[in-house]
């Protein structure tokens, strides 16, 4: 499942995506640079994880790809077609049926006054996936079975409050699958669930990618689950994607100083807390007040003068990996 060949067309591609938000009043307001120049590709049956701390811009990227926000700059390509240039409700509907979302909080993403079937019913109708009562019900049962909510005819009658967090998240996934998507954007889909339930959801998504060839953009703050579920990891810091590598490479051989810090911060029971972990320091910067340099420079132990001047461009280290850091200037700049 490694689409390294250039012959394979990405299903969804972000090209140089940026998003700015304006805050405050007309004269007093600042600009939050939430995402700057994000580029990456998603393939069929391939999982890309977007990892970063809160405020790093990962959810903003997801919302741009879901067409909930318009990017300030950059393009979104679906099967090579520029999505942002398409106009009209029909085109948006088509795109959204192909690119579905699963949200973080299964406790608020389902309508409490409707039965579980309602959430899955709506996309079936909106995207016209089944006509007539019999066909609709048939489809509902299939989808509930697909996400292992069995016996399905019992589960479709339940209300959200009768379901556990894990079951609700399965419904959210069934809802996304109802549109027959090629890509699922999963924004922290397991972070609100209990440990023993999380794995079930991750394994379900892994199964869907395997059997249905769905591509996933998996957004998380948890490097360990990213490693478990994804083929490739993008690390975000303060609006920039600072490193991209295959999951195993990134975990075993992190290049960017921020990735190294992030990995050092993951609890490691076999080692216990050690004083050398004091390397983990500082907090993420205020995004309204970013200088021109690398936003990680104030926390970086390898910081050089040049780091304060401008954000380095991506440097390719190997075929499938690049990093944005002056420490790796000997690499080949990414065009």
């Amino acid at each position: 499942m490694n689409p390294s060949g250039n012959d394979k067309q990405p299903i969804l591609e972000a090209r140089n995506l940026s998003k700015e938000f304006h805050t405050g009043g007309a004269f007093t307001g600042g600009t939050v640079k939430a995402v700057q120049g994000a580029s990456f590709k998603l393939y069929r049956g391939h999982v890309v994880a977007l990892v970063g701390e809160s405020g790093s811009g990962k959810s903003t990227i997801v919302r741009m790809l879901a067409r909930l926000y318009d990017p300030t700059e950059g393009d979104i390509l679906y099967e090579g077609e520029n999505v942002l240039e398409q106009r009209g409700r029909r085109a948006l509907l088509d795109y959204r049926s192909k690119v579905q979302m699963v949200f973080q909080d299964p406790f608020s993403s389902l309508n409490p006054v409707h039965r579980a079937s309602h959430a899955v019913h709506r996309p079936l109708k909106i995207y016209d996936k089944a006509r007539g009562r019999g066909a609709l019900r048939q489809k509902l049962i299939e989808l509930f079975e697909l996400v292992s909510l069995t016996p399905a005819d019992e589960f479709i009658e339940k209300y959200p409050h009768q379901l556990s967090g894990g079951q609700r998240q399965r419904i959210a996934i069934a809802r996304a699958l109802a549109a027959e998507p090629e890509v699922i954007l999963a924004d922290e889909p397991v972070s609100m669930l209990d440990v023993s339930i999380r794995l079930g959801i991750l394994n379900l998504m892994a199964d869907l990618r395997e059997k249905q060839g769905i591509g996933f953009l998996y957004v998380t703050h948890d490097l360990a689950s990213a490693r478990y579920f994804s083929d490739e990891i993008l690390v975000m810091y303060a609006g920039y994607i600072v490193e991209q590598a295959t999951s195993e490479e990134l975990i075993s051989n992190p290049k960017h100083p921020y990735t190294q810090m992030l990995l050092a911060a993951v609890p490691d029971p076999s080692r216990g807390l050690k004083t050398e972990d004091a390397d983990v320091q500082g907090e993420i910067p205020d995004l309204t007040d970013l200088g021109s340099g690398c936003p990680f420079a104030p926390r970086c132990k390898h910081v050089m003068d040049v780091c304060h001047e401008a954000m380095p461009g991506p440097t390719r280290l190997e075929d499938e990996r690049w990093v944005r850091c002056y420490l790796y200037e000997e690499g080949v700049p990414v065009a």
Partner: protein
Amino acid sequence: MKAPANDPLIQIQELNVEYRTLRGAVRAVENVSFDLYANEVFGLAGESGCGKTTVANAITRLLKPPAYITGGRILFRDIDILQMSPEQLRNFRWDQLSIVFQSAMNALNPVLTIGNQIIDAMQAHQSISYEQARGHAKQLLRTVGIDVQRVDSYPHQLSGGMRQRAVIAIALALNPELIIMDEPTTALDVVVQKQILQEIKDLRDQFGFSILFITHDLSLLVEISDRIGIMYAGKLVEAGPSLEIFADPKHPYTDRLMNSFPTVHGPRRELLGIPGAPPDLIDPPAGCRFHPRCELAIDGECDKLIPPLIRIGGERDVACHLIKEAEVVS
């Protein structure tokens, strides 16, 4: 790892708590017993609804109806916390015990400066002048890694991590002997979490208080605790030195839990997880509460008899019918 040779600071004996709801009594904590020693970090782990926070709230006497303590004792040294008069309780809280909650970052009063909130706590319990208290507050902020200038900052001017540090500073203000920390870092990013855990451990070494640390994150718990207890569906199923449990979990639930979270350390491996979901405690399964999810359950035993928590050598305690047999033989 120190051996807790001294007398226990807190002894929880056969604690039972239930929530009386319209649907019936939820037996949230059943016959839970453990000791917490001086200068020790004891970690309590388990999934949501397993009763870990209820135990913490019982110790602090913060349980309110519909929660009722239906049995057991909680001894602080030799005084039963559950029998304390309101006056005793008032002195016990803060002077000997303080609490850091999960959402503590949001528990700060938004219209008071950080400094004044620390000073408040001190002046309410000690005869200390404002100036003295302010000096002490600054010192506390420095201790938890906040710039002293921040003493006059309001909560909204601080980041989440700094607010959580400020709450820890308040918890330390009266030099308590026990601090209960209920998911103190769950709302924080990993990097900030790491910094705060480090801080907590350093402070413990410096001041010598005990910590009851509650979290669902087992790897974090093993990292910070000297000993841990694992709760499942209102019962304590395993307890012992954290590294020993991590290396060799005895209870099938602990074992499966350890196999449920991916890690960045060591080789990547397939994870099994735990089938099913925790039970509804209005009508918990008979016998061992874990038996419906346990592959190793013995018919006629695990589904009928409640396994007692037994000492299996060293400092390890386990409540499982399988272990009894295995350990008695060896």
